[in-house]
């Protein structure tokens, strides 16, 4: 299949453009998503092409904006609502968690909410309230799907799939990913199911499991560990809910060691869940460690940000310690 090199933000814009072309009922809402094209130009071109009715700038009112997107989807539209940063998603969790996630259940199937809530996680110099990764909160909400791609091809594929789901999906991207490039297949087909992790680097000694931007850190760590004689298998979770425990489990069954990596906090994080589920599945003893943010807010201060965020050096160190005396 032929492919084209796109930036992550371009992959999002392309997926949206194709899906809006295909589905008249798909409407995009969010702050500065219109003529401005989004904080990271990930909506570039949509307003010009589909107009102000279908690409709607909203006031700074995250709660109502999400509620409106969900209500509209429940009533027959399909919607994608953009929440600039995941920190502000907190303002609009009420309709997402109390209404949309439960709508199908509580109505006994009478109402479904085919909406995508797209939001940007991660730290990049903007300080304590523009930096958080709280995707783990959403993993424990029955009725929500949670997607967190690490590269343009997955962003494209998973967004298209998400936009065709029958229930609410939270699509989490990352500030540091928008300007990364990658090959994206030249196809309009939807062929990337939710709930499938990917082995992005095969290896034999340890499995590194990560999602979103942290996958790049994991790969970097794997490259650094190779000369030290440690062969890392890097797994990109891609979807956090449903979680592809099977693929991670298969990998760990081979490597017998798991290091989870995430940019968010460790406590009740993605890593603790992955670790629990994998161990539950395997009947052999495995070594497990997790790497995550240190337990502090993420300051805009470059020194402090770098210290709190996980990096390849910490993954290397943790992995070496874990494998010590193998």
């Amino acid at each position, binding site marked *: 299949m032929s492919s084209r090199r796109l930036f992550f933000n371009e992959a999002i814009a392309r997926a949206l453009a194709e899906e809006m072309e295909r589905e008249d*009922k798909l*409407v995009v809402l969010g702050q500065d998503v219109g003529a401005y094209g989004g904080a990271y130009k990930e909506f570039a071109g949509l307003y010009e092409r589909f107009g102000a*009715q279908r690409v*709607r700038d*909203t*006031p700074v*009112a995250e*709660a*109502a*904006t*999400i*509620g*409106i*997107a*969900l*209500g*509209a*989807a*429940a*009533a*027959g*539209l399909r*919607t994608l609502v953009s929440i600039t940063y995941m920190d502000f998603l907190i303002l609009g969790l*009420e*309709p997402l968690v*109390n*209404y949309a996630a*439960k709508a*199908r*259940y*509580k*109505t*006994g*199937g*009478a*109402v479904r909410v085919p909406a995508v809530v797209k939001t940007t996680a991660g730290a990049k110099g903007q300080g304590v309230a523009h930096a958080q990764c709280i995707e783990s909160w959403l993993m424990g909400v*029955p*009725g*929500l*799907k949670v997607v967190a791609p690490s590269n343009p091809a997955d962003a494209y594929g998973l967004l298209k799939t998400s936009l065709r789901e029958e*229930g609410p999906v939270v699509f989490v991207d990352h500030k540091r990913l928008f300007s990364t490039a990658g090959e994206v297949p030249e196809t309009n087909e939807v062929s990337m199911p939710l709930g499938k992790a990917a082995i992005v680097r095969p290896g034999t000694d340890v499995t590194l499991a990560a999602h979103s931007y942290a996958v790049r850190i994991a790969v970097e760590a794997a490259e650094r560990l190779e000369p030290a004689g440690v062969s890392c298998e890097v797994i990109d979770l891609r979807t956090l809910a449903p979680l592809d425990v099977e693929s991670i489990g298969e990998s760990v069954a081979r490597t017998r060691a798991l290091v989870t990596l995430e940019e968010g906090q460790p406590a009740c994080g993605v890593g603790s869940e992955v670790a629990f589920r994998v161990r539950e599945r395997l009947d052999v003893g495995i070594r497990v460690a997790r790497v995550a943010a240190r337990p502090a807010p993420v300051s805009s201060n470059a020194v402090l940000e770098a210290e709190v965020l996980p990096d390849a050096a910490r993954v290397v160190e943790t992995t070496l310690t874990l494998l010590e005396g193998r």
Partner: protein
Amino acid sequence: MPDRPDPVDLLRSMLLIRKFEEALAFQPDRGFQLLSSGEEAVAVGVCAALDDRDQLLSSGRSIGPALARGIEPHLVMAELLGKISGPNRGKGGRGHLASPDDGFFGAHAVVGGNLSIAAGVSLAAQLEGRGAVVACIFGDGACGAGALHETLNIAALWKLPLIFVCDNNGFSISTPVARGVAAERLSDLAIPFGIPRRTVDGMDVFAVYEAAREFADVARRGDGPGFLECRSERFASHSTSTRETRSNEELAAARERCPILHLGARLEADGTLDAAGRSALEKDVEELVSRAIRFSGEAPRPSPDDALSDVV
């Protein structure tokens, strides 16, 4: 939709709510319920202004709105009592009752939580372009919530076909409206956004109907939202398991304003409904209610397996 609803229909609809709730109160396993008795005229008046295309959303005080919108009483009763024959297979109950096919998009037990959802439903209606409108009933308590502000603003900016119906029964649980909302009239909350507003006697079903009809017409024409405050009385305590905070005198004064009593007297006085007609009406309604009790009594509960269906 007829230009003016039949007053006897309105009376029937209000009586149905009242008698339905009286019967519900006698059900041993009725659980936690919020009753609409006293506030029937709000739901019935608003629904008289809606037609088949339209959708209604309510707060957790959903029984009146659901019945007024025309969901069959036996189905409502089954849902409230947790039976699988309810429109939500007994999963939603009073707090989340929904039947979009009947034009009742649903209740939402989070105070103020229905507002932005309703605006979304009205956005879908607007884009569909069939002239449908959406009405959202919320309480005076919800007027303290930021959700109202955000939704009013966007509804005004986007000229959404949405009627904000504030059923002001004077209390949020124990808190009188004067200590919950600084606005003198709750409809004043619409002023900054340039949204047309009315405050009416919520115990007068015609006053409610006329104002709702006016806003529905405006919205259908594409001229955007309206804000209708209906001043009503809640006859019972906040919920079936909440302590009453009003004195007997206050309660008696509230019950004096009974919308059924007043409309009944008026129809008797002007000769629209004589004693015989009235008792036939009551019998009809009682029959519906008995049937609802029978039906829901016989209907099965969900099985434990149902607990994990319709999740994602």
